[in-house]
C-alpha cells in the first residue's frame, strides 16, 4: 500500500484535535455547525407541521409557529421558576446523554441507556424503600449508590457479552431494555410491592428522598448531573482510562498493539455508561416521584441518544443538548395553553432533529459544507458502523 499525495483537502479529519483543549472560536463554529443547523431545521419542520395542522382544523394563522415558539421559550427561560423547571427536566437527560456519549467515545452504540435507567430507578426505589426509616445522611447515599450500582450491572451484562462472546451491544442492549421493563413489572408487583398498597408500586423512599435545594422540585440530583459534566470531561481527556476508552473507540487494533485490552475497556465503559444512566433513574425516583410504579414509563433513555448526538458526544455539547430537550419539555405545557399547539409537537421536533443529524450529508449540502471542512461526526460513524456495517 502506498500513500496518496497529500493534498490539503485529503484529510478525513480536521487538521487539529479539538477535543482535549479549548477550541478557538472558529473551531467552535465548525464543531457546532451541523448540530445547530439540525436543531434549526427541526424547528422549521415543527413550524410547518403546526401550520398544516392548523389549516386542517380551520384556525389557520401564519404567525402560529412564532407564537408557539415564543411561548415555549418564555415558559422555559422567561422566569426563574421556568429556568428551574428546565434544569430539572434536563437533569436525567444530562446523565443519560453522558451514558450514551461515553459509549460513542469507546466505539459502542449504547441503546441500552433506557434499560439501565429503569433498572437504576428500580434499585433506588427498592433500596430507598428499605432504608426509608434510616437517617437521611445514610439513606440518601445508600439509595443513590444502589441505583448507580444496579445501572452499572445492567451495563456490565452487554459489555461482558460483547467482550467474551462477541455479541453485539446494539442487539443485546435493545433486548435488555425489554427485559428491564419485565423485571420491573415482576418485582414491583411482587417482592417490592409496598405493603397494603392499592396500586402496584414500591413503598415511599422516606428519608432517602433527595433534599430540595431550590424552587419546588430542585433536588440534589440536579447538582449531581451538572457535576457529572466536568467529571466526564476530565475522565475522557485527562485520565489514562479515558485515553484507553478513546483509543479503543478510535482504533481497537492499534489499541491492542499498544498493550491495551479492548475487551476490558468495553466492559468497563458499558458499566460506566450504565452507572450514569442508573444514576439518572435514581435521581428521578429519589428526587421527584419518591416511589416507583410497576407501569413506570419513560422515554428518557431513548431521548438520551438524541441528546448525545446533538452534543456530538462531548460532555459540554451534551449539556446543551439536554438543556434544549429539557426546555422543550418544560415549555410545552404553556405552549399548548397559550398557542393551542398540542405538546406532542415537541416529539415531532425532536424526531426531526435526530433525522437531520443522522442525515448530515443533507445538512452539509444545504449549508454547502464539505466533509473535510467540518469535523467528522465520529459518533455517527459508530452508529452506522454498529448497524451491521462491514467493519
Amino acid at each position, binding site marked *: 500500500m502506498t500513500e*496518496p*499525495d497529500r493534498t490539503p483537502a485529503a*484529510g478525513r479529519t480536521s487538521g487539529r484535535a479539538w477535543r482535549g483543549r479549548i477550541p478557538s472560536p472558529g473551531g467552535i463554529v465548525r464543531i457546532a455547525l451541523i448540530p445547530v443547523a439540525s436543531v434549526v431545521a427541526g424547528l422549521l419542520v415543527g413550524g410547518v407541521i403546526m401550520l398544516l395542522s392548523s389549516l386542517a382544523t380551520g384556525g389557520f394563522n401564519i404567525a402560529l409557529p412564532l407564537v408557539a415558539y415564543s411561548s415555549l421559550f418564555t415558559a422555559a427561560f422567561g422566569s426563574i421558576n421556568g429556568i428551574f423547571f428546565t434544569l430539572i427536566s434536563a437533569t436525567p437527560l444530562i446523565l443519560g446523554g453522558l451514558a450514551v456519549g461515553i459509549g460513542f467515545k469507546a466505539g459502542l452504540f449504547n441503546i441500552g441507556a433506557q434499560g439501565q435507567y429503569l433498572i437504576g430507578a428500580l434499585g433506588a426505589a427498592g433500596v430507598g424503600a428499605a432504608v426509608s426509616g434510616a437517617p437521611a445522611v445514610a439513606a440518601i447515599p445508600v439509595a443513590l449508590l444502589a441505583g448507580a450500582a444496579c445501572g452499572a450491572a445492567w451495563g456490565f451484562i452487554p459489555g461482558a457479552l460483547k467482550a467474551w462472546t462477541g455479541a453485539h451491544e446494539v442487539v443485546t442492549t435493545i433486548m435488555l431494555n425489554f427485559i428491564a421493563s419485565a423485571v420491573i413489572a415482576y418485582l414491583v408487583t411482587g417482592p417490592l410491592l409496598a405493603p397494603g398498597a392499592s396500586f402496584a408500586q414500591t413503598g415511599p423512599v422516606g428519608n432517602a428522598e433527595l433534599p430540595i435545594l431550590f424552587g419546588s422540585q430542585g433536588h440534589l440530583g440536579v447538582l449531581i448531573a451538572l457535576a457529572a459534566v466536568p467529571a466526564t470531561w476530565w475522565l475522557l481527556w485527562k485520565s*489514562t482510562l479515558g485515553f484507553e476508552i478513546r483509543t479503543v473507540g478510535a*482504533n481497537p487494533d*492499534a489499541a491492542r*498493539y499498544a*498493550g491495551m485490552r479492548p475487551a476490558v475497556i468495553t466492559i468497563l465503559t458499558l458499566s460506566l455508561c450504565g452507572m450514569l444512566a442508573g444514576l439518572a433513574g435514581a435521581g428521578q425516583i429519589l428526587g421527584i416521584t419518591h416511589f416507583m410504579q410497576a407501569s413506570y414509563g419513560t422515554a428518557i433513555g431513548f431521548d438520551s441518544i438524541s441528546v448525545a448526538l446533538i452534543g456530538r458526544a462531548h460532555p459540554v455539547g451534551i449539556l446543551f443538548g439536554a438543556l434544549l430537550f429539557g426546555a422543550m419539555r418544560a415549555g410545552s405545557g404553556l405552549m399548548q395553553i397559550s398557542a393551542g399547539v398540542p405538546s406532542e409537537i415537541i416529539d415531532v421536533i425532536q424526531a426531526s432533529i435526530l433525522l437531520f443529524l443522522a442525515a448530515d450529508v443533507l445538512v452539509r449540502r444545504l449549508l454547502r459544507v464539505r466533509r473535510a471542512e467540518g469535523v467528522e461526526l465520529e459518533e455517527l460513524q459508530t452508529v452506522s458502523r454498529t448497524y451491521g456495517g462491514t467493519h
Partner: protein
Amino acid sequence: MRGITKRYPGVVANDQIDLDVRPGEIHALLGENGAGKSTLMNILYGLAAPDAGEIRLGGKPVTIDGPADAIARGISMVHQHFMLVPVLSIAENILLGEEPMANPVFLDRAAAHSRIRALGHTFGFDVDPELKVGSLSVGWQQRVEILKALYRNANILVLDEPTAVLTPQETTEIFSVLRRLAQEGTSIIFISHKLYEVLEIADRITVIRRGRVVGSRTPSETTEDELAAMMVGRGVQLVVERGESHPGEPMLQVDELHVGDDKGREVVHGLSVEVRRGEIFGIAGVVGNGQDELVEALVGLRRPLGGRVRLDGRDITGMSPRRLHRMGIAVVPADRHRFGLVLSFPITDNCVLNDYAEPPYARGMVRSEEAIRERAREAVSAFDIRTHSIDAVAGTLSGGNQQKLVVAREFEGNLRLLILDQPTRGLDVGSIEFIHRQAIAKRDDGTAILLVSAELDEVLELSDRVGVMYRGRMVAVVDARSANREDIGLLMATGGKTDVIADAAEAAP
C-alpha cells in the same frame, strides 16, 4: 501542459509546471509523496482547476471541466485505489455510466461483450466479460480499470502508482500491456516512485520536487542514483552503509514455535530462530507465509500453539503485550494505519500510545499533558517529522511522516528487541533512507533487530543475517553480505527443494 500553477492555502502544490506527452509515449512522472504529482494529474483530469497555466490537447488549448469532460476528450485515469464495483461483472463495471442500449429499455449486452473481448485481444489477454470483479485478482482488477479507459476511447491514460499493489509477476504482465498500448498510439502517464520500474517502462521521465519540475531524462541517459537525487534534492544513499555489526549474546531465542491464524489453522510450524544483540536479522518471504502471525506471537498478540520464546534467556512465551513492551520489546507494525497509529488522534497522543500510563506521562491515573507535549516535541525534531504543530492529527501527515512518527515512538528508550515489520512499505526514498539509518544506529547501540520485509532488496541491504520463511518454516539462514539474490528469490518462491538449502545451511553461523 504549460506553466501549470496551483496554490492551496499555505502551499504551492504546482509551480509553473510544464509537461508534454507525445502520442504513443510512456511518460513517467516521478516524485516524493507530496511533491505535487497527484495535484497535477487532478488538474489534467478536471478534478481541480489550475490557478494559472494552460492545457493543450493536440495543440489546441482546452479547459477541462470535470472528469466527464476529461473522459469525453479522451483522458482516462486509473486510480491507485480501484473504482470498481465488486458485485458487478467485468462488463457491467466497464459499461457503468456509458451503457450501450439495444433499445430504450434493455442494454445491448452482446455488443458490449464482444467489444470488450476484442479490446482484450488487441492487448494480449483473454477476458471473460461475465466474471464478477470481486472474484478477480488485484492484477486483473487493474486490467479491468485499463479496459474501462480503453472502452471510452482514451488516448491519454494516467496510471497512478499502478504497481503498488501488484506482485512482481503481475507487474511484468501489466508492463507488456502498457507497451502494446503505447505501440497503438496511446499516451501513458505513469506515476510512480519506484525508480527501477520507471527506468524499465518509461520513454521519458519527468521529476517533480516541491511542486516544480526539476528535470526530464530518458532512461538511457540517467541512473537510479541521479533520479533519487533529483527527487529528494540531495544525494541519497539508496543503500545505506550498514557497516560492520558486532553481534553479542543471543537476545531473542525462538524454539520450535507453532502459531495459528485467526481461523485456528496452524501457519507457523515449529519455527526456530535466534537474534543476537547488535545484529539485524532479516526475514525474507513472500507475504502470507506466516510472517504476520509470527510477529504477533512475538509481541504477545497471539498465543502460540506450542514452542518457546526466550528474551535475554528468560521465558516470555504467552506474556501480554503490555508486559513484553515493559521488558523492552518494541514493534513497528506492518500496517501503520491499522496497527501503528490512531489517525484521528494528534501527534502528541500517538507519541505515547504505549507509554501513556507510565511516568512521566501520567501520575497515577492523571495524564501529564506537559510531559506528553515535551515527548512529542522531541520526537518531531529528532525524527524530522514535517508538521505545522504537534497538535496536528496523525491522519493529516504524509505517509512518510506517519511512519516516522511510529518509528519515533517505538525506537524510544533502551530496547532489547526491535521488530520492524515492513518498515518502509509505500515510502519514498528519502524516508526509507532515514528509517534505515535509524535502524542501523539502533543496531549499533546493541539492540537486537528482527526485520520482516516483502522487499528482498531491503532485507539484503539492511540485515546481517537473512532467514527465508516459506509456508511457516524457516527454510534457510544465510549471511546477508555473501547471499545470492537469485538463490534467496528461489527459496522464497519454492521453499528450496534443491542444493541451495545445503549451501545456505553451511553459510549459517
